[in-house]
C-alpha cells in the first residue's frame, strides 16, 4: 500500500502509464483498425477521358491476387504479352485456395487496396459487394475512353454476365444492379461417366432422374470397390452448389421465393423433401462410402481411379482426369448433361471464376486494363489452347475451344445442351454461406438417420429467419 507521505510512487506511475497506454493507444484505435473496412470509394470510371489507348499507363504496375487454378495457370505465361501491349508490369500474388478467401476477405475488410485486381466467385460478390469493397465495372465498360471498341462485352454468355451482376436487394434477381466482376472462366455441373465400362456392359447414360438413381445402384458393387455416382457431401456450402442444386432445380424445386418482400424458404416443400430424401438415399446406396467428407478432389479422384462410375460435378473438374497419363481411367471418360427434370429441364448451376476490381485500388485504370485484357477475346483464345476449360466467351468457345475437345467425348454436346439454361440457380442473398452450409449440415443429418421431413422443416425455418434479418 502506498504511504501518503511517499506521494506518487514508481509503481503508481507504472500502473497509471499502463492504464493511460491502454486507454489512449488501444481503445481509440480499435474502431480504426479492422472495423469498418475504411471509407467508401467513389467509382473511378468518370475520371478517364480522351481516347482509348492501351499504352496510357505505360511504366506503371498492377498488383493482382489469385489462387492457383487451371484458369490462372493458363494465363500465367501470357502476362508478359499484357506488359508488351500496355507497358504495365504485373505483380501476381498467389494464395492457395484453402486460405484464399480468408486472405481476400481480410484485405478487403482492411480497405488497404494493396491488390488492384482479384479473382472471385459469383457468390462472394453477395458478401463483398454490399460493404462497397468492389468497384462497379458497368461504368468502365460503358466508358469508351477506358474500354477498347473490340472488347464486346455481350460476347460473354448471358448467364455469366448476369451471375456477376446484382443490386444487393435480397431476392432481387441477378442481372440487376452493378457489374461487380467480369467472368473469366466457368464450369457447368454435368455428369462425367466411365464410357469404357458403360460400353463394355452395353449401358447407356440415364436421361431421367428415376433411371439415373436405378443405374447408379445397379453399378454399385462395394466388394469390387465400385460405386455408382460420386458427388460432394462435406460440411460446406460447396456441397450444395454443384450436382445437388443442379438436379434440385431440374426437378422444379426452389430454394426461396419472394412473397410480400420476404424470402420464403422452399426447401421443405413436399416436392423438395422428396427430392432431397432421394438424393441422400442415393448417396447412401450408390455414393462414396464416406460421403460426408467428400469434396470435389475426392469425387474426381474416384472417377479417375475407376472406383466411381459417374461423377456429378463441374465439367472442368472432371475434364483433367481424361488427359493422357492424368489418371488410371484417362481416355475412358465421357460426358453428358445428366438427367433432365420431369419437364425436360436442363437447368444447370454454374461456377465462375471472375476478375474484380478492388474499390480501394489506387490504380483503377491499370486494374481495368488488366481485367479487360484477361477477359478479352485474344487472351482467352490463347489461354484455351493450353489448359483452360470452358471459356466465358461464345466466340472463343465456337472457334478455339471446340478444336481442343476431340478426345473428350460428349463434352461439347453436354455443354451446348445446358449452356442456355446455365446460370446461378440460387436466390441471391447476403447470408448465402451460412444458410447454404446449414443446408449441407441438414443433408448430413438425414444421411446420419434423422427424419428428412422434420429436419428439413427445421432447416427451412432457421434459414428463413437468417435471410430475412
Amino acid at each position: 500500500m502506498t504511504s501518503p507521505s511517499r506521494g506518487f510512487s514508481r509503481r503508481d506511475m507504472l500502473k497509471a502509464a499502463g492504464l493511460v497506454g491502454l486507454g489512449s493507444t488501444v481503445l481509440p484505435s480499435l474502431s480504426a483498425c479492422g472495423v469498418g473496412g475504411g471509407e467508401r470509394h467513389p467509382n473511378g470510371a468518370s475520371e478517364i477521358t480522351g481516347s482509348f489507348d492501351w499504352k496510357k499507363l505505360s511504366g506503371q504496375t498492377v498488383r493482382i491476387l489469385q489462387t492457383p487454378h487451371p484458369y490462372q495457370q493458363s494465363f500465367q505465361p501470357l502476362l508478359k504479352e499484357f506488359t508488351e501491349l500496355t507497358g504495365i508490369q504485373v505483380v501476381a500474388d498467389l494464395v492457395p485456395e484453402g486460405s484464399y478467401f480468408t486472405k481476400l476477405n481480410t484485405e478487403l475488410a482492411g480497405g488497404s487496396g494493396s491488390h488492384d485486381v482479384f479473382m472471385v466467385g459469383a457468390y462472394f460478390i453477395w458478401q463483398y459487394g454490399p460493404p462497397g469493397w468492389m468497384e462497379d465495372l458497368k461504368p468502365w465498360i460503358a466508358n469508351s475512353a477506358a474500354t477498347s471498341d473490340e472488347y464486346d462485352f455481350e460476347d460473354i454468355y448471358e448467364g455469366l454476365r448476369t451471375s456477376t451482376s446484382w443490386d444487393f436487394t435480397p431476392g432481387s434477381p441477378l442481372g440487376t444492379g452493378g457489374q461487380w466482376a467480369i467472368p473469366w472462366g466457368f464450369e457447368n455441373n454435368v455428369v462425367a461417366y466411365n464410357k469404357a465400362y458403360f460400353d463394355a456392359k452395353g449401358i447407356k447414360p440415364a436421361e431421367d432422374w428415376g433411371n439415373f438413381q436405378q443405374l447408379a445402384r445397379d453399378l454399385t458393387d462395394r466388394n469390387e470397390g465400385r460405386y455408382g455416382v460420386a458427388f460432394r457431401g462435406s460440411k460446406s456450402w460447396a456441397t450444395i452448389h454443384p450436382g445437388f442444386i443442379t438436379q434440385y432445380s431440374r426437378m422444379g424445386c426452389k430454394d426461396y421465393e419472394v412473397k410480400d418482400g420476404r424470402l420464403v424458404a422452399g426447401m421443405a416443400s413436399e416436392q423438395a423433401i422428396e427430392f432431397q430424401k432421394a438424393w441422400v438415399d442415393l448417396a447412401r446406396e450408390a455414393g462414396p462410402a464416406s460421403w460426408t467428407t467428400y469434396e470435389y478432389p475426392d469425387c474426381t479422384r474416384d472417377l479417375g481411379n475407376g472406383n466411381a462410375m459417374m461423377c456429378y460435378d463441374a465439367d472442368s473438374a472432371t475434364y483433367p482426369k481424361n488427359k493422357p497419363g492424368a489418371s488410371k481411367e484417362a481416355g475412358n471418360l465421357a460426358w453428358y448433361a445428366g438427367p433432365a427434370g420431369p419437364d425436360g429441364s436442363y437447368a444447370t448451376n454454374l461456377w465462375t471464376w471472375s476478375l474484380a476490381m478492388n474499390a480501394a485500388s489506387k490504380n483503377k485504370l491499370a486494374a481495368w486494363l488488366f481485367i479487360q485484357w484477361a477477359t478479352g477475346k485474344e487472351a482467352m483464345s490463347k489461354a484455351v489452347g493450353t489448359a483452360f476449360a470452358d471459356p466465358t466467351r461464345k466466340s472463343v468457345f465456337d472457334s478455339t475451344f471446340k478444336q481442343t475437345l476431340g478426345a473428350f467425348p460428349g463434352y461439347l454436346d453436354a455443354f451446348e445442351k445446358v449452356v442456355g439454361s446455365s446460370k446461378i440457380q440460387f436466390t441471391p442473398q447476403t447470408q448465402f454461406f451460412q444458410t447454404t452450409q446449414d443446408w449441407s449440415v441438414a443433408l448430413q443429418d438425414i444421411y446420419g438417420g434423422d427424419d428428412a421431413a422434420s429436419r428439413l422443416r427445421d432447416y427451412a425455418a432457421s434459414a428463413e429467419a437468417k435471410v430475412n434479418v
Partner: protein
Amino acid sequence: MSTATAQSSPGGPGPAGPDGPDGSRRRGAPPKVSDRARKLRPYLLSVPALVVVIGILYPFVLGAYYSILNYTASNPEPHVVWFANFASVLKDPQFWASVRVTAIFAVAATVIETVLGVVIALLLNRSSFVGKIFERVLILPLMIAPVIAATIWKLMFNPQFGVLNHVFGLGTFDWLSKDTALASSILVDVWIYTPFVAILVLAGIRSLPREPFEASDVDGAGWWYMFRRLMLPMMWPYILVAVIFRFMDCLKAFDHIFVLTAGGPGLATRTLQIGAYEDSIIFQNFSRGSTYMFLLWILVFITAKYLVGVLGKAQRRAAGAEE
C-alpha cells in the same frame, strides 16, 4: 545532461572516487549520471515490458471489443450492441452442441493420452536397446504438423481404399460417420500427442531422487507398493503439467478435426474453435465469432486456474510440505 566519458587519467590510478581533481572520471569508476537520468532510468527500463504487455493485450482487447459490436461483412459500419451477441450465442443450440463436443473431446483425449503417456514413460524408463529406439521413434508424430497428420489419417480412414479397413477387414465401415467421427478425431489427437505426455513424464521420472526407492527396496517393498506410494506421488506434478498442457490444448482443438471432418457430419465434431472459425471466417460474422472466442477464453481461463491450483497443491505434497 552531463555525459560520463571513459577517459584514462594521465597520472595512472588516482585516489578512490569517481572523479579526478579536474572533474574527469577515473578509470574503472562508474559513469557519472545526473539525478534526473537516475530517476528516469527505472521507467525507461519498464518501457519494453509495457510495450510487450500492450502487444499481448491489444488483440485480446480488440476481440473483446468486436464481441460487443454487430460487425459483419455486410455491416461494415457497426455499432455497439453490448451483450446482444452473448445472449444470441448462449441461446443457440449449436453453441451448446459445440460445448458438449469440446468437453467430450477434451476430457476423453486428455485422459487417454495421460494414461497411455504414463504407461509408455514407465516402459521406456527401463533402459534397453529397444527402449532407446522407441524413445527416438516416439517423437515422430510430434514432428508432423497436425494438418498433415490429419490428412494422412483421413486417407487411412477412407472406406474405399484406406489401409485400416483393408487390414482389419472392416468392409465399408465409415470412420467419419455421425456416430464415429468424434471418436476418430480423438484417436488422431491421441496418436499425435501421447508422445508429448510420455516424454514429459519420462523426463520427470528420470529426475526423481533414487534414495527413497533404494531405502524401500532395502525394506523389502514390492514394485506395486513402490509405484503407488513413492513414484506416483512424486511423479504427480509432472503428470499434472502434462494434463494442463493437453487439456488446454484440447479445449482449443481445431486443425486436425477441421481437416478430418470440417466439424461434421452435422454438428458431430463442431468444437468451439470450429464454431468461431465458421462464424468469423466462413460466414464473416466477426462479432459473433469473437463472442465464441471470448466464451472459450472464459472456459479455458477458469479451467486453467483450477488445474494450476491443483498442480501447486500436488507440488507441495510431493515436496512433503502438505499432507
